[in-house]
């Protein structure tokens, strides 16, 4: 039972990070119908920029409080990622908005690899240590289950951000414009909405969330690396599809479900398959789910858009 609770907690932590990244995918997809393959790389850039800031600051002013360092790291990482996200849209995708379907997709793959390579040139190939700015000392709320302040922090921040985004999309003027553009950007334009501006704003918000996810990711695993964004990116995309792409609450649910599935999968698959499969197959759960969802329920768990629309 303790193991079960512990696995649930593990799943919630990784799941909430997936969910944050998935929001970026789902927002862009909702509005443009494009899978922004490069979104995962923004997670990586966020983590590495934050790391760079923290290292520079703690070098210049030793003894700075970790919380200030963390805030400073985020304060630099988020605008940088927003700028990168905007540039990707402006240079890479905007001209291809009416191109045949394969073109933006191939561009997106290209952008993803380009960002990885550039990161490799800037930060090198080595794994960097991301300082533990929030305590990881285990606490024991009940026998056999441990949780660290960092894990609680991760979940809280992720949920707060998701809540904030929901408010933004559902209550604000920009949010209404985004929903209108997602519906039909030509008609939205006729209603006096600057569709290009709204699309750019979508990319910028998604990129900001990715940067935050990157900082959370790196803090949790204490590691940052030029290729760290690809796998979480792919999994977050799976999460977005799982929840029903284009659907914001869906992305959150999808992220959490995927986190839990991976955690339980790694923990219990050996018993479930009588020893035939084991934790070496942890990474294929995401793909299996993706395939199954697309085949049997293309509109995802919470539904909305139909995958076939692509």
């Amino acid at each position, binding site marked *: 039972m*303790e*193991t079960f609770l*512990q*696995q649930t907690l*593990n*799943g919630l*932590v*990784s799941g909430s990070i997936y969910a944050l990244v998935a929001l970026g995918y789902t927002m862009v997809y909702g509005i443009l119908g494009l899978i922004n393959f490069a979104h995962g790389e923004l997670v990586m850039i966020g983590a590495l920029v934050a790391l760079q800031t923290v290292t520079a600051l703690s070098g210049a002013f030793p003894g700075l409080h970790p919380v200030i360092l963390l805030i400073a790291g985020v304060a630099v990482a988020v605008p940088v990622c927003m700028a990168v996200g905007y540039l990707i849209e402006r240079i890479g995708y905007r001209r291809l908005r009416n191109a045949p379907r394969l073109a933006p997709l191939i561009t997106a793959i290209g952008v993803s690899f380009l960002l990885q390579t550039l990161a490799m040139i800037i930060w090198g*190939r*080595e*794994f960097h*240590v991301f300082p*533990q700015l929030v305590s*990881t000392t*285990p606490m*024991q709320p009940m026998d056999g289950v*441990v949780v*660290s302040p960092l894990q609680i922090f991760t979940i809280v921040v992720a949920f707060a951000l998701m809540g904030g985004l929901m408010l933004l999309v559902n209550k604000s003027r920009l949010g209404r414009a985004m929903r209108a553009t997602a519906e039909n950007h030509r008609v939205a334009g006729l209603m006096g909405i600057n569709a290009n501006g709204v699309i750019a704003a979508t990319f910028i918000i998604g990129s900001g969330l990715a940067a935050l996810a990157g900082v959370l*990711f790196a803090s*949790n*695993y*204490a*590691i940052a*690396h030029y*290729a*760290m964004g690809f*796998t979480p990116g792919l999994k977050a995309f799976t999460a977005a599809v799982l929840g029903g792409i284009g659907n914001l609450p869906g992305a959150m649910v999808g992220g959490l479900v995927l986190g839990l599935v*991976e*955690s*339980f*999968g*790694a*923990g219990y698959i050996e018993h479930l398959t009588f020893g035939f499969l*084991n*934790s*070496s197959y*942890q*990474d294929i759960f995401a793909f299996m789910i993706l395939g199954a969802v697309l085949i049997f329920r293309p509109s995802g768990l919470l539904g909305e858009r139909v995958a076939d629309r692509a």
Partner: protein
Amino acid sequence: MKQNKLIFALAAASLVAGAVQAKEVVVRIGHAGPLTGPAAAFGKDGENGARLAIEDANAKGIKIGGDTVKFELVSEDDQADPRTATTVAQRLTDSGVKGVVGHVTSGASIPASRIYEQAGIPVITPSSTSPKLTQQGYKMTFRVIANDLQQGNALGKYAVDQLKAKKIAVIDDRTAYGQGLADAFANSVKVSGGQIAGREFTNDKATDFMAILTKIKATNPDAVFYGGMDAQAAPLARQMKQLGMTAKLLTGDGGCTGEMIKMAGDALSATTFCTQAGIPLDKMPGGAAFRTQFKQRFGNDIHVYAPYAYDAMMSVIEAMKTAGSVEPAKYQPALRSLAYQGVTGPVAFDDKGDIKGGAITVYNFDAGKWAPLQTIQ
């Protein structure tokens, strides 16, 4: 006999020639390893080791068969990729190298060894530890480092006998290296009377080990073994601490690095153990001197395999000296019967080309560095 006469005649001829003008023969020896890509640090380390050996040999002014030989290093980048490795091997044989130090990773060494075998050029790997490499029955393939079997066996036995670990969980990263090592370790634990409490898997790009560690924690093992590299072993160590696990952490040479100490930070403790092939550098008569020399020459510390690459290169040169020839066909037998005192220990090969009695040293994390505990022959 006839051949000897021929060599003698050649030597005499070259002596005569040497009387006319001081003759210097340039002998090219290759080094192949990943100089780019994720494993670049290991390749660069090996290249530096090989380069140092060549510079030392050249400084001594070695004479082979009467000629002063100037060695030249031809370094190639195999990106630790099996396909690139064969292209690189082909290019080295094309460029007329007389021997090769490399490749660094087993995945590259195995396909490349076939090409060297066909070309008849001896190749000595400083770091490919897959047992399969020397099981192919090739005459030209040598290895100056204990293989995964020897390393896994030694650590498994040590864990049960010395560390008194009864229940041990084993994790590997599903690479040729990690899996080979973990299998050998698990076998040795069982043979020594220990029990494998669980066998879990991850991959060489993973960062999250919470799920498998939670599962392992439930079985309450005395020790956890990780077969893989430091980039995963370090977060694994942190997450063990985060989960409040008190089991000992054991790794092979992939986790026995300075990077591991840097990345795992305060997650390492006196209950972390690792192994490295060979005798600890500082215990060697010339070890400390080698480290100083290396640092002076390249401005950075040894990563892992530089001393082995140094010894591999020196073995080639030693064999050439013994045979009195730089031709592969002539000095290959000398390589087989080599007895050379290297930086990492005595170098001699068994009939498969593996190093004889390769020593394994168990280290323990102590006060910010790896402290050697025991060397197992």
